[in-house]
């Protein structure tokens, strides 16, 4: 009999990092080693994480495929499933189905400058590709990361932000919204689009990867255009509600395009061709 496509892998929580009061990162390890060996994924893909008894929720894999043996997910406590997840402890079981969806075309980006722009809880879906390209550092030229959050306490991956800031081969700009700073905050204060405009990274031979709340995207796009980025060189991910993850349940489509099959990674050029249904 062939596989039950709705059956999740059983994963054990190996480590929990409390990123902010309501955001957590789980490191998950396959319970079954045979499944672990067969499993592979690429940057940008997502999965259905489940708490048995609560249901499933869709997040991107937050760890890079260059780190074997585990996957990580970062989620904000918001609905029934994420609350269920937040109640779990190290050693507990989480279900995982995936990977689904397309990937960031990182091979095409080789030899280019990369500009990552993320806002708030949108860093996790980008963390996978960021680490992926950092782990293959010699293949890419400059890597710039612009990350903003509402306040200092809302910044996720604080330990990694520190590492990135210390690395000479990465340019990291962190910012918090006005009023969100603490007395010892050393980063920028201001909204992502303004900070980006001030930093003015060059668009020459560069790719921009953008992820964040709609309002941030709305105001960041004109800045990227001003800097000279072409639509086809800007990438983002769409996050629509989904249940199955493989084009059957009928929720995530934007016009003819299934976010779960044709996405979640889209170039801005592709997004512009979509009907406004996302």
């Amino acid at each position, binding site marked *: 009999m062939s596989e039950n496509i709705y059956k999740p892998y059983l994963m054990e929580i190996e480590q929990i990092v409390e990123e902010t009061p309501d955001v957590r990162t789980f490191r998950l390890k396959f319970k079954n080693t045979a499944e672990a060996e067969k499993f592979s994924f690429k940057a940008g893909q997502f999965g259905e994480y489940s708490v048995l008894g609560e249901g499933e929720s869709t997040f991107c894999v937050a760890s890079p495929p260059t780190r074997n043996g585990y996957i990580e997910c970062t989620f904000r406590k918001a609905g*029934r499933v994420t609350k269920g997840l937040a109640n779990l402890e190290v050693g507990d079981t989480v279900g995982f189905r995936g990977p689904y969806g397309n990937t960031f075309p990182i091979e095409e980006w080789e030899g280019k400058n990369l500009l990552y722009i993320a806002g708030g809880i949108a860093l996790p879906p980008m963390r996978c590709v960021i680490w992926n390209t950092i782990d293959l550092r010699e293949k890419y030229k400059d890597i710039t990361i612009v990350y903003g959050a509402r306040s200092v306490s809302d910044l996720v991956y604080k330990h990694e932000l520190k590492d990135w800031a210390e690395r000479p081969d990465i340019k990291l700009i962190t910012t918090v919204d006005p009023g969100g700073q603490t007395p010892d905050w050393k980063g920028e204060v201001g909204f992502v689009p303004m900070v980006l405009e001030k930093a003015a990274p060059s668009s020459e031979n560069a790719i921009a990867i953008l992820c964040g709340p709609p309002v941030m995207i709305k105001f960041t796009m004109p800045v990227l255009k001003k800097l000279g980025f072409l639509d086809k060189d800007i990438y983002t991910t769409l996050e629509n509600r989904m249940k199955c993850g493989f084009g059957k349940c009928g929720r995530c489509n934007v016009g003819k395009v299934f976010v779960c099959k044709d996405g979640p990674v889209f170039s801005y050029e592709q997004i512009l061709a979509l009907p406004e249904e996302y």
Partner: protein
Amino acid sequence: MNNLIARAKELLENKIVQVIVGYEAGPTGVARPAFITNPAKADLLIYDERCVQNLAVYLTKPEVRNLGKMAIVATLPVMRSIMMLISEQQIFADNIIVLGVSSDGSLLDIADIKVMQAYIEKSDLGNPVKDRALLVELNKLSKEERFAYWQKELSKCIKCYACRQACPLCYCTRCTVEVNQPQWIPVQSNTHGNMEWHILRAMHLAGRCISCGECGRACPVGIPCHLLTMQLADEVHNYFKVYAGTSEKMSSVLSTFEPNDKESFII
């Protein structure tokens, strides 16, 4: 009907309202809701015995509201729904014009809410005659027979929520069944879960149901779910001597009380 069309035209032409919510005939001959914004199209309006749907459901619908000020063709149940919606502060009396129609199809002159209230008060406010008969039949059955009857009926329910969507008083933007913390009602359709849903619906309409029967009419599989709310409408009248939708000031039976409410089962 001609009076209705003339009045509709006049309201649209003089820009007193932007839309008339009334009935038109569909291609298969059934009457259905129509939204007339162009006075030239007012001739499409009909009013006859086919026009049974409670149009008041559209008063709270965002896309219909966006059309602007409306006039609504209103039978007695529609008027009572309007009263309920005003009393529950979902709509403002000033924003709608009521094109009242009596049971024989003639246009009533409902100048304002006072007139409407007077008209409602002198009408028969009990359940519709044919439903009364059904209720009497059901109440004659034994408890076990009634339990079996409702199990059989509710096993047909497919949880399409047409009963809820068709009801002018089920206007919540997020229904209890759509809350999943806790999940009161199972998402799937099975007899037990369906029964819980219909109990919940009837309880949430207790003292608010204006006996239009729209829920039962909307049901695609023919469950007489309107009898549940109608039975409660009867009981509300028995116990508390009120009919829903008779005054703009009335508050819902279950959100008020009288210290001397009578019952006989609490020990």
